[in-house]
């Protein structure tokens, strides 16, 4: 009889685990608390076009599944927590779409790999006061084969020839599955300006088709990427790349299924999950041999904290008060050049270029000693972004020194949209014990469950790195010919504002490691003390890395799920080629 795997969450982690386990002969049930907008998902006849597209009003209204009334979160700083403040802000706190496909329904689909150093930050750079530096329990080379599988499934475009040598030496790789798409005009301008200051800017690897791939069409460069659902399924993601073939091979998807807790026996092993089913919120108990937790770094920790039992009185895997801790977001730095010419940044793939230079740690500057830091490291720089039209109008309204009565002149001139050469650096965020997710003592979601409360403050490292690179980005933008170059370093927005480091990249909270005293999960994502509960999302990341996390998340999930299906040794050896690269056959036995 097939073993039953219950997967909580249908985003990048849950979907890739479903793909592995279904093909390994498991009976798979995927529980998703949101709705499904992918028509034809799992149908033998194939995908149809989804109920998503280039509509900005839906986004303003929290579509899909980011309704902060249904499920708010709260936030406070570490200082607030020390002073006994329960919360400083309630609303959108690093929300991700709660819908089939999770965050990949609105992602920009940028898929750089982590570097070798991302897996060994402590060994290479040592301890940092106030941060918890650790190495990952495996190395880049261990994950590289899984990166390849993830890139093949997602359908990643890229140009190997223009990737900088230093990046390739840190993340060696072969050819991309597809060639890169056309470069955006704004990215080309930045590339020129950066080159004049000695920096290399290259095409950004991205999960968007440049040709017919996996039955999905080529991207039309419509511009509605970041924040929008792809209307033609040209963009890879959890639903179309993993869940669809998994469902074709027999996985069962249940939508509007909010898991309230993971039940365990006296030994601590998971026996079942309980969830609220459908619009009527009927309580259902579902037996499980294996439970895959993949609800996102914030929501997976929240679920573990509310899954209390005699074996796990403080929450699943929380014997050492580590669940929810070491939460990281990438520290976001904005720099904007206002160009004399129009850049039509609405044509393309939100951005098409990347600068990796800030991912190199600075270790030899004299001022590091004054600041008590062994290094500072920025992160991946996304080049050429801009605003959409409604957003642009709101930005002008909220900018203090602009006259609101001149609104249409600003919109016509469009210096923060059509003339905007935007750069966003997503910097490494060092893990801190005090940055955490716990359960808010008062605020509830629509189901009556305590919401996630985020306690978060930037480390000095992030602030220094952000200022260091913001100033340099400003110089690059000037070299590009910008009339004005503005920047917004991380940490300037107060914690009680919606803008406070509200990135959608989140890691940590169920940290993996070899020692149960200092980690929540083992090197294959299994919760210490509950070995049949396997975490398959970015909760397990010991450090945040300096790159967009989703590709790494998928690779880790594929590896963890393979350990569930075939054992640790098989997972250490890498993917079994015929099983993971062949097209999915229909039926439960279609894994060969």
């Amino acid at each position: 009889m097939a073993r039953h795997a219950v997967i909580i969450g249908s985003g990048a982690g849950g979907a890739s685990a479903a793909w592995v386990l279904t093909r390994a002969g498991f009976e798979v049930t995927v529980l998703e608390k949101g709705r499904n907008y992918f028509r034809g998902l799992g149908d033998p006849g194939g995908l149809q076009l989804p109920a998503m597209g280039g509509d900005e009003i839906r986004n303003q209204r929290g579509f899909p599944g980011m309704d902060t009334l249904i499920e708010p979160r709260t936030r406070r700083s570490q200082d607030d927590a020390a002073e006994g403040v329960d919360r400083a802000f309630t609303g959108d706190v690093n929300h991700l779409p709660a819908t089939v496909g999770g965050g990949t329904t609105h992602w920009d689909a940028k898929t750089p790999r982590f570097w070798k150093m991302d897996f060994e930050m402590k060994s290479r750079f040592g301890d940092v006061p106030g941060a918890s530096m650790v190495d990952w329990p495996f190395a880049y080379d261990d994950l590289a084969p899984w990166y390849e599988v993830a890139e093949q499934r997602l359908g990643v475009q890229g140009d190997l020839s223009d990737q900088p040598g230093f990046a390739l030496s840190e993340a060696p790789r072969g050819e991309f599955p597809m060639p890169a798409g056309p470069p955006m005009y704004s990215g080309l301008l930045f590339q020129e300006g950066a080159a004049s200051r000695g920096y290399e800017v290259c095409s950004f690897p991205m999960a968007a088709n440049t040709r017919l791939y996996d039955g999905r069409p080529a991207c039309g460069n419509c511009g509605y990427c970041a924040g929008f659902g792809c209307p033609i399924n040209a963009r890879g993601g959890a639903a179309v790349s993993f869940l669809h073939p998994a469902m074709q091979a027999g996985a069962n998807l249940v939508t509007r299924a909010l898991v309230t807790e993971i039940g365990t026996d006296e030994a601590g092993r998971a026996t079942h999950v309980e969830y609220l089913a459908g619009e009527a919120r009927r309580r259902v108990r579902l037996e499980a041999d294996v439970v895959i937790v993949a609800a996102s770094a914030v929501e997976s920790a929240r679920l573990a904290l509310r899954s209390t039992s005699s074996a796990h009185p403080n929450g699943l895997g929380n014997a050492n008060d580590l669940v929810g801790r070491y939460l990281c977001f990438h520290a976001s730095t904005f720099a904007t050049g206002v160009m004399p010419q129009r850049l039509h940044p609405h044509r393309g793939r939100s951005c098409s270029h990347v600068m990796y230079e800030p991912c190199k740690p600075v270790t030899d500057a004299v001022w590091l000693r004054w600041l008590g830091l062994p290094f500072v490291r920025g992160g991946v720089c996304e080049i050429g972004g801009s605003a959409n039209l409604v957003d642009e109008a709101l930005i002008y309204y909220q900018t203090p020194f602009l006259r609101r009565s001149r609104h249409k002149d600003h919109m016509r001139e469009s210096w923060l949209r059509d003339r905007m050469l935007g750069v966003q650096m997503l910097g490494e965020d060092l893990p801190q014990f005090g940055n955490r997710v716990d359960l808010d003592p008062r605020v509830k979601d629509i189901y009556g469950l305590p919401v996630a409360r985020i306690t978060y403050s930037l480390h000095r490292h992030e602030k220094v790195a952000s200022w260091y690179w913001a100033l340099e980005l400003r110089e690059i933008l000037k070299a590009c010919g910008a009339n004005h170059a503005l920047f917004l370093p991380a940490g300037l927005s107060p914690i009680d504002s919606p803008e406070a480091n509200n990135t959608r990249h989140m890691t940590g909270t169920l940290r993996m490691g070899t020692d149960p005293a200092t980690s929540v999960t083992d090197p294959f994502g299994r919760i210490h003390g509950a070995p049949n509960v396997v975490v398959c999302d970015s909760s397990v990341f010991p450090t945040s890395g300096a790159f967009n996390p989703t590709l790494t998340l998928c690779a880790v999930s594929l590896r963890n799920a393979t350990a569930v299906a075939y054992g640790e040794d098989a997972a250490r050896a890498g993917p079994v080629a015929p099983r993971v690269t062949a097209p999915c056959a229909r039926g439960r036995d279609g894994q060969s």
Partner: protein
Amino acid sequence: MPSIDRRAFLARSRDLALLALLPGQVFAELTAARPLDGTGGIFLDAEQLRTLRALCRYFIPGPLDDPDPGALAAGVPEYIDGLIGAFETTPLRIYAGGPFSDRSGAAHDSFADFLELDAIEELAWRTRIEGSRGLPEREWNGPVKGLQEQYTDGLLVLDGFSRRIARRPFHDLSRSVTEALLLVAPDELEVFLALVFRHCAEGMYGAPEYGGNRGLVGWTYTRWPGDHQPLPYTPDEVSEPDAEEAEDVGRSRANALLHALRSSDRSRHG
């Protein structure tokens, strides 16, 4: 019979001559405020709608304050009234459908096939729009003041503030007086103004299926293409700069027209 002196006659004749040159959408802007002034909307009554129109017109002006059609021509007040009265109309226009509108080659406008809310979403949106109204199922985090009440209260406060400070109803204020008045708005009113502006921006610049952005006036003057699928952009359109001089010449003509109208307005009052 009212007397009209020669100077006033010439000024008005010049206005009429200029009006004849206006595009249809601009003419619509000039006339949009009046026919409905005595009529209530889906949720707001006539007086509330009049105040809201004046505020929308201030935020996103049209002729004669601007050469291009503004919030009134775009139907922004009606968009807002439709949002806060959403549950009174069919279809329920909360989330447009997909994948495409019919603006770029698709045969069918699937944006207009609005998605049905499920029971959980409907509970959230009724709570957001109507408020909790003391209903226990809407108060999972305590009482909620809905958009309807925020608007009726906010418009009342705005008009009262105008009558107190400027001694006139808000909708009677000139643009310059409105600007001065809003600069000294108290914090409570500032929160309401930010809410209205957010909805103004949606109604002016969002997809027209929701009831605003009529005639795509919000996209036209901003050179925004809007949703573009299923039509792809060519590699050249993505990578190469645009030749935009022709458009800029058009813009200069529109500005010349605006200045002519403004001059005529000043001469009439001067």
